[in-house]
């Protein structure tokens, strides 16, 4: 006879019924992991954010977040802009461009007291292209070159006396500027 047989069966039986994982457990685990992930991502981004804050203290944070916006509507929402079309802004963009990586853009504002000029390219992954803060002694005029992802509307937005005014011009691009 084996000695083990003398051990009462009841002792080796689990005192508690074995609990199999329920769908609710997975949901809780998923939630916990998700929270952990966010915290980790946040921690990773923190030094970068601090650096940005140090390098550009004068730039309004609303403008900064508008640069991360993924659509024209989102850009305007973050800038708190409800632009009015204006004939006093001249936007010079070619009707047709072969290379979307280098599109000349020239903006002149005849509005009194223009404080800021924005360039927005509607089809870009991040539509807000550039912002220029224009002091009083600087003409409300700027000329630069931008990348345009595909044929789309380019907007010139001018912040003047608490209002936003804009002008829109369509440009046709043969080769998009995303690969540049």
């Amino acid at each position, binding site marked *: 006879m084996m000695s083990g047989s003398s051990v009462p069966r009841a002792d080796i039986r689990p005192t508690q019924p074995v609990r199999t994982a329920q769908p609710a457990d997975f949901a809780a685990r998923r939630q916990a992991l998700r929270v952990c992930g966010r915290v980790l991502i946040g921690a990773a981004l923190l030094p970068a954010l601090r*650096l*940005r804050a140090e*390098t*550009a203290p*004068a*730039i309004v944070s609303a*403008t*900064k977040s508008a*640069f991360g916006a993924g659509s024209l509507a989102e850009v305007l929402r973050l800038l708190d802009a409800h632009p009015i079309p204006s004939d006093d802004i001249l936007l010079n963009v070619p009707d047709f461009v072969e290379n979307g*990586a*280098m*599109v000349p853009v020239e903006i002149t504002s005849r509005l009194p007291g223009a404080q800021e000029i924005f360039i927005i*390219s509607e089809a*870009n*992954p*991040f539509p*807000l*292209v*550039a*912002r*220029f*803060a*224009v*002091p009083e*002694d*600087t*003409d409300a*005029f*700027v*000329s*630069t*070159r*931008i*990348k*345009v992802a595909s044929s789309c509307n380019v907007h010139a937005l001018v912040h003047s006396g608490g209002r936003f005014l804009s002008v829109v011009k369509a440009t046709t691009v043969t080769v998009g*500027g*995303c*690969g*540049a």
Partner: protein
Amino acid sequence: MPDPIRIRALAKDGGTDLHVLMPHPMETGFRKDEAGAFVAAHYITDVDISVAGRTVLKATLSRAVSEDPLLFFRIKGGRPDDPVRVSWVDSWGERRVDETVISAAT
């Protein structure tokens, strides 16, 4: 270290024309290299331009500004030999500052 900023400041008609060219790759992060891997985003984010110690333009750029960003603008006033100072900071925290003086239109 990136190449020096090229600045041309020309006094004319009671104002000054400023041309600023900042050599920089302006990588969007969307471009792929020959091996098919994405090239890390790297672009100028902030530009400060001053004439005789006075800020004349502050620009906030995105990755959608073309490679080697070029800015052209005009200011009222400015005399020959006034110092012009251009500084930029990019998305990696790199910086570059260069100076010149306003030249008289010939």
